[in-house]
């Protein structure tokens, strides 16, 4: 008996650690091949001259920081493209995000107020969340057809006498940006409302009650109780929206038919990246833009994690 048993004891252990590695292996393998390696490659080629000219490939040829320098070199018109597109992205994000957060916050407070006791909430939430799931490119195409010079909105406005001939929404900087912002607003305010509602609902109900009994008015309760306690979730939602805004692509790309019209005032950072990746396959310049995007996202992400961490304590 003894000889067999001691052999067995040496042979293996009942530690399950290896199963942990086996279970997470596919994830990390796929991540390494399809995300991590491409990421490294992206950064690598940002230091190379490497693109397609017609059917011939130019490069790869190491050029140091030349791509980055090119990014920051003013064009013939005297603008630095990447700054212009970053500005466009920020402006259009702000135009959508400000109403998005103001209205979402108001709706979240209304929906959770026991005094107002809003009926039909589940239908309302269903309706306002719906645009979030709609294909952004199809939604944009719908906007394009509806707002085009021969579209129904123009004909409605003309028949109502608001304007006397069709207005081209897509060739005016203000209306173009407004439409992009409106679409983004429509797609995201329902989502934000639901997140903020959950945030308010996670606040201990008795805090509101005791504040009311202490004589605080509705606005006072909002500023003294709701907002401070909602802050971590609000910031989290806000920054993730910023990260999303930085990736703005589908809507302006479809609305402007890839041109960023008029005069590239609706061109975003990712559209810029897409232009280099599309036909010319300029991995050098695309890489440099990606690195800039990566750094901007990383900075915002760090802020997100800071807020989550604080939330935990």
């Amino acid at each position, binding site marked *: 008996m003894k000889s067999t048993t001691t052999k067995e004891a040496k042979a293996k252990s009942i530690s399950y650690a290896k199963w942990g590695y086996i279970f997470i292996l596919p*994830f990390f393998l796929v991540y390494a091949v399809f995300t991590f390696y491409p990421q490294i490659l992206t950064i690598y080629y940002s230091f190379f001259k490497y693109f397609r000219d017609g059917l011939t490939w130019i490069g790869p040829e190491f050029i140091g920081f030349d791509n980055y320098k090119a990014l920051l070199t003013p064009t013939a018109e005297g603008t630095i493209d990447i700054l212009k597109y970053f500005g466009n992205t920020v402006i259009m994000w702000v135009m959508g995000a400000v109403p998005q957060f103001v209205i979402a916050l108001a709706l979240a407070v209304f929906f959770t107020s026991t005094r107002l006791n809003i009926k039909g909430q589940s239908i309302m939430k269903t309706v306002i969340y719906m645009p979030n799931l709609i294909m952004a490119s199809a939604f944009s195409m719908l906007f394009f057809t509806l707002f085009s010079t021969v579209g129904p909105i123009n004909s409605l406005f003309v028949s109502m006498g608001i304007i006397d001939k069709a207005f081209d929404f897509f060739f005016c900087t203000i209306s173009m940006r407004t439409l992009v912002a409106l679409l983004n607003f429509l797609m995201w305010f329902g989502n934000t409302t*639901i997140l903020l509602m959950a945030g308010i609902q996670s606040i201990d109900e008795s805090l509101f009650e005791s504040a009311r009994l202490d004589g605080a008015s509705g606005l006072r309760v909002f500023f003294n109780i709701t907002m401070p306690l909602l802050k971590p979730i609000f910031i989290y939602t806000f920054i993730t929206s910023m990260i999303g805004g930085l990736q703005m692509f589908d809507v302006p790309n479809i609305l402007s038919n890839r041109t960023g019209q008029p005069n590239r005032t609706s061109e975003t950072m990712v559209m810029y990246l897409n232009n280099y990746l599309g036909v010319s396959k300029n991995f050098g310049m695309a890489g440099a833009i990606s690195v800039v995007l990566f750094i901007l996202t990383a900075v915002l992400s760090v802020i997100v994690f800071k807020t989550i961490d604080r939330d935990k304590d």
Partner: protein
Amino acid sequence: MNSKNKAAAVKLLILRIFVYAVIIFLCALCLFFFIMLFVNSSRTNSQLQRGFTLIPGGHFFYNLNNAVHDSSINIPRGMLNSLIVAGLSSALTTYFSALTAYGIYVYNFKLKKLAYTFIIAVMMIPSQVSAAGFVKIALELDLDNKLWVLIIPSIAAPAVFFYMHQYLKATMPLEIVEAARIDGSGEFATFNRIVLPIMKPAIAVQMIFSFVASWNNYFLPAILLTKPGKKTVPVMIAQLRSADYSKFDMGKVYMFILLAILPVIVVYFILSKSIIKGVTSGSVKG
């Protein structure tokens, strides 16, 4: 006393009317564009040129027939491609995210903490920033116009992993796993036969979200899928925009858009309750 009560009641009533008005306006705004889409997809091109109306034109199936048989945009093919990509992606995403989350939640191993921290750290990085390298590899290996290149990467989805991990932490006592071990169940069998059924609600929610995300995905497919037979729906929609739309049958265009978004809308209205619940449960609950 009575008048004070009355004044307060009137004030509350006015506030409520205002709030309802705001909400109903926003709901109407959300619905307006889709109602326009429905209406216009049932009108012929000549009807459409007569201008704005909210009365359906009665030519829904005429437009449907035209759209389905269009010579340049093969929308049935596109929908099939999208269905393949989105269906397989969502299945892989949820299964492997659950597997990874389970591996990190249940087992103790040296790199556990590191693995977890890594996934959380890269969670916010958008796929666009590694797209250049991805496209480069795809071209080099002749993988453009292959649907599976868009499917396989979904095995590693950090955000879905995070959701699954949170779900496991909240609902899965480790004793269940131990009970299964003592019952003689192997580690994979325990995951597939005990844990997956327990995670069903989380898997359902994430499956819907990842299906929708994949169905709507435009950036990378637009770069990689250039052959007509390989295009997915969003790529075809973009193609519609770049065509000279003034020559287009607008009834057909509206029908294309409707077909692109209808599957998601139908699923949404069937499952809206659990989808909306899923929006919040995956977010910040450190």
